[in-house]
């Protein structure tokens, strides 16, 4: 039903032609062919009406490329198993793991069973349920560039369709290193796997490109085989409950939106702090850095959700249209709006830890940043003049992600003994992890004395809803199978975000080497970052 409107990259002329009454052979054929392939998320099952019964997708096969990898066993299969456990997956749902190693179906199943036992939020598997789930799991051996492997994959998928009733519905999940994406996509296209008599979708993991040119190139390659509405670029931050709650909080309450603008807000701080170092991803991280690894995707997504205008409806394209508008309105960034850092030796959780340059896989003279702070402005009527400070780093003292909206101070102070600048302004903090919740700081009188003190009013998810939230991957995998792209990034979002940050990356690469390391592991980043925000008469929130 959303079919033709969803075609964002379809030229306008084409759209008009397609919507003509069907009386010309050529056009008719084309229209039918297209609508067959269209993702139709709504299946008119009359038993689905009403409350309580959660949505379940049509039976489908999920093909995981890179099935021998960490992501498959740590996140994907546990998420799928938990969905099955909660009856969110239909009978007939199947998984095909595609990887190079010489494994048998049984060996692969045993391995996944171990993985689910170790990583599932619901604990060890229920043997009966697993037995039924595992019947739908197969292993397909092949190299990503080996044509024969795709021919046999097509045959295998057709066999599953016949045996398990998946009617041609497929999800291809690229859980491989990014270098393999173009090869896999091209091979899928060459073997006619990009379209079927059901629906076909492809999920692409981050990183999506490493700068604007590479992201555009990857998009071109993917979109030469798949249509945009088949492509699901995953950013697991969007699968988190609190991130989704930002939109509910803003647009389902009447009291916040009227003050959500430059008249009332002084500035916004978005922080994503990690305590871990680069772990065993040193080799990859050294070619990437904090700007690419965190800012370009996760922090930019948070920025969009906080700053976007209300969409006209809660629908994949309406929401993403508004998000892209935010990115397009961001003022061009210069190097002077950024601070970078790299951690040296220090301590974490009371134990000494190595510096970044001593990590495995990292160059001893590495210039890669593990910390970035930046300031940006959104030049539109709502936000003109309001700075947004973003920071993200590794080996910081606490693992915390939050968005803090700092409001303007009271315009005048009538309480004589309390000078205006001693008062804390109101802060609305949206905490994303680890303690999900929302808190509002306001001033209050201390008992007895005539003093004013800031107090916080806390809403904690854990306190008001005792249920454990599903993992981000569960939500996202289910959404993709249901054909709902709202929580995935669209082509223009990815490219606009890269377009903003690529000039910084270039300037850094061309600029003089930095005196790295410049912060101690376990501290709140380089001193330069504190000076950077102090120049504006503000300071980072103590978290």
């Amino acid at each position, binding site marked *: 039903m959303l079919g033709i409107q969803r075609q964002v990259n379809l030229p306008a002329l084409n759209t008009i032609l397609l919507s003509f009454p069907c009386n010309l052979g050529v056009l008719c054929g084309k229209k039918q062919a297209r609508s067959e392939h269209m993702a139709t998320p709504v299946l008119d*099952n009359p038993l689905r*009406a009403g409350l309580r019964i959660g949505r379940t*997708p049509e039976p489908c096969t999920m093909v995981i490329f890179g099935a021998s990898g960490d992501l498959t066993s740590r996140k994907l299969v546990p998420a799928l198993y938990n969905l099955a456990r909660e009856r969110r997956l239909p009978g007939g749902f199947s998984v095909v793991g595609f990887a190079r190693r010489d494994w048998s179906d049984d060996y692969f199943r045993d391995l996944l069973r171990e993985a689910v036992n170790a990583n599932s939020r619901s604990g060890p598997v229920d043997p009966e349920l697993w037995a039924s789930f595992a019947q739908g799991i197969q292993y397909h051996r092949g190299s990503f560039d080996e044509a024969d492997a795709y021919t046999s994959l097509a045959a295998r998928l057709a066999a599953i369709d016949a045996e398990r*009733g998946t009617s041609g519905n497929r999800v291809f999940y690229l859980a491989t290193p990014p270098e393999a994406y173009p090869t896999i996509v091209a091979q899928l296209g060459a073997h006619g796997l990009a379209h079927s008599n059901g629906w076909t979708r492809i999920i692409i993991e981050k990183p999506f490109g490493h700068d604007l040119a590479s992201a555009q190139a990857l998009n071109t390659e993917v979109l030469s085989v798949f249509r945009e509405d088949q492509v699901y670029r995953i950013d697991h931050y969007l699968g988190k409950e609190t991130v989704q709650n930002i939109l509910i909080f803003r647009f389902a309450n009447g009291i916040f939106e009227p003050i959500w603008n430059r008249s009332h807000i002084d500035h916004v701080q978005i922080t994503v702090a990690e305590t871990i170092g680069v772990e065993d991803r040193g080799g990859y991280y050294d070619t990437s850095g904090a700007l690419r690894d965190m800012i370009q995707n996760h922090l930019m997504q948070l920025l969009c959700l906080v700053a976007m205008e209300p969409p006209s409806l809660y629908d994949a394209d309406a929401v993403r249209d508004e998000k892209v508008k935010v990115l397009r309105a961001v003022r061009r960034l210069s190097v002077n709006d950024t601070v970078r850092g790299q951690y040296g030796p220090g301590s974490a959780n009371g134990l000494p830890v190595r510096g970044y340059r001593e990590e495995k896989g990292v160059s001893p003279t590495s210039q890669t940043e593990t910390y970035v702070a930046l300031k940006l402005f959104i030049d539109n009527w709502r936000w003109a003049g309001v700075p947004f400070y973003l920071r993200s780093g590794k080996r910081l003292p606490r693992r915390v992600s939050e968005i803090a909206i700092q409001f303007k101070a009271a315009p005048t102070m009538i309480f004589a003994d309390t000078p205006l600048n001693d008062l804390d302004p109101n802060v609305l903090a949206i905490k994303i992890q680890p303690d999900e919740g929302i808190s509002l700081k306001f001033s209050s009188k201390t008992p007895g004395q005539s003093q004013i003190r800031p107090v916080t009013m806390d809403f904690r998810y*854990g306190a008001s809803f005792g249920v454990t939230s599903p993992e981000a991957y569960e939500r996202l995998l289910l959404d993709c199978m249901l054909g709902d792209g709202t929580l995935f990034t669209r082509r223009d979002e990815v490219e606009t975000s890269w377009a903003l940050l690529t000039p910084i990356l270039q300037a850094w690469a061309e600029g003089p080497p930095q005196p790295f390391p410049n912060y101690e592991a376990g501290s709140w980043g380089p001193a330069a970052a504190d000076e950077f925000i102090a120049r504006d008469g503000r300071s980072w929130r103590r978290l």
Partner: protein
Amino acid sequence: MSEGAIDINAIERELRQMWQEQAAHPDAGGQAVIRALTLNLIVRAPDDDWAEQALAVAPALTAQHPNRTVIVIDRPGPATELQANAQALCTLANAGRTQVCGEQVTISARGAPAGQLASLVLPLLVPDLPVVLWAPGPQPFAQPLVQRLYRLCDRLIVDSTTFADPLRELAELAVFEQTANGAPAVSDLGWTRLTPWRELTAQFFDTRPFLPHLHRIDEIVIEYAAGNRPNPVAALLFVGWLASCLKWTPLEDAVGIEGETIQIYLRRPAVGVGPAAIRLVSVAIRPVDLAGVEGLARLVLRAVDNQQAEFVVELTSDAGHACTRATIAGAHPIERTATIDRPALADLLNSELRLLSRDRTFAAALNLAGGLARRLALP
């Protein structure tokens, strides 16, 4: 206090004091205690057993819906007896997380007039929060306390599996729900227990090629576990649900009981014929002997005309799982195992407390099932 009178303010004072003590002396774990009430729950317990059950589920309810629970033990008796006590109840979430606390007030009464009980309950409700009345046991609508309180409530929860005269009471429940029209919203825990069965049934028809078969079902067989008191309410509600979703209407006078089997005929629109054409769906509901199981045990939807198609959900030998099987003539049968836990009372209540408004799917199913029950209950 004087005999027979309870000082409501004393109860409130007691609760307030408990919170203040908690705040002054956080418990040994050093965890903050948060009072976060999201609703008022009144439990009308017909006897001490039910009061104990209500007390037993309170921690699990508090974890998901921190609430003020007022349990009224409303026992019959010649002499009037009244007692009240209050406690704060905290549940510890995972280590290191905040404690979630609710409050409980128990009013133990014997032979007290409903008006007197209501006058105790009403001032105890926390203002500006939804009020839910849970009335387990048989004959909920005949209870004077329920009659007095239901208008003030946002939701009334009953449990059709505890009905003494299931068919007659189901018919009453249907009439009550229709008359109340959402004020209050009505919940039946017997319906809540059907959710997994409805989910598994609905899932068959998310498969595009199977969907057409849903509109050409000819036969339905439902088997339910019968202990010493057969209660076909769940099965009737299930039929009511299918019929209301698929626009089937009961055939007048084609409802009957043969031995232990309930036989029903419904009219359904015919597929692929002129609009005036109708076809019949035959429904057989029968009890089976199954130890340790309550509620539905097996469900078969069958299309026989033209192309054979059969959809089955049945409990496996170990309770806790169900096997679903779709068999279409000429194709490989599709089978799988799904979890279908025997739900704890707390889970059932929690899922009802999550709802804020009238459950229209339930209302439609109940309306139809109530009509069938009325005809079945006729002598």
